[in-house]
């Protein structure tokens, strides 16, 4: 049976600009956070299992490679949260003016990096060995 002609999703034929970048980053960070969800569950399961499993999990989470992944996860979390709130405003019909959308987009991008760096520093100093 031949596939009927269906409308294409906007991402298939729009000119590339900052809006696409922010939008695709929302998806990428969402997928990344879904992966990090399994790390969270691993950590919780280790904490429930006992001191030995917990020590093992903290060694694994504290390894340099995992630390890079965790910082990426934190950055993704900040971006996805801020841009998610931006989208909730869009859903409410607010912030669609070009100047406003551009400004909020920049605020999300810069804010995500800034908050992630601060949160990482705070977690390092208070939570110790997430570091």
């Amino acid at each position: 049976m031949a596939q009927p002609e269906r409308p294409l999703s906007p991402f298939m034929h729009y000119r590339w600009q900052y809006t696409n970048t922010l939008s695709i980053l929302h998806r990428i960070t969402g997928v990344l956070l879904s992966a990090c969800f399994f790390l969270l569950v691993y950590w919780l399961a280790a904490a429930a299992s006992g001191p030995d499993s917990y020590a093992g999990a903290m060694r694994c989470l504290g390894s340099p490679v995992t630390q890079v992944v965790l910082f990426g996860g934190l950055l993704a979390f900040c971006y996805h949260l801020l841009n998610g709130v931006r989208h909730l405003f869009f859903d409410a019909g607010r912030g669609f003016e070009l100047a406003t959308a551009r400004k909020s987009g920049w605020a999300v991008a810069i804010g995500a990096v800034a908050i992630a760096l601060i949160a990482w520093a705070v977690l390092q100093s208070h939570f110790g060995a997430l570091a």
Partner: protein
Amino acid sequence: MSLRSPLGRVLGLGSAKGGSSHWYAQRVTAVALVLLGLWFFVSLASLEGSGLDAVRAWLSSPVSSVLAVLFVAVAAYHANLGLRVVVEDYVASKGTRVAVLVAVKFALVVAALVGVLSVLRIAFGAPA
């Protein structure tokens, strides 16, 4: 000219099935996750180190354990809603798409149950 009514031609096509409830659930869980996510990171940052005792003491309090269970459950639900849209957009073949969607759902349900059970086990006093 088709003898079928315009409505008959579009029924069962496109997203005119359960789209609005998916859309709405995604927003409601998003709002919940803003609050739960902020709570989670503030709690982590206010722990006295990352030792097992500190983590267990935190998750043993009734409010923290309930919020942690909610965080795990709502995050898994929201992840499933979001990944579903991504898979539906990028996986063209119907068979593969359904297989991936089912695999994603299975993985998230198992992970969510492990996470919830772990928090409850700590809340009810996990063995040392």
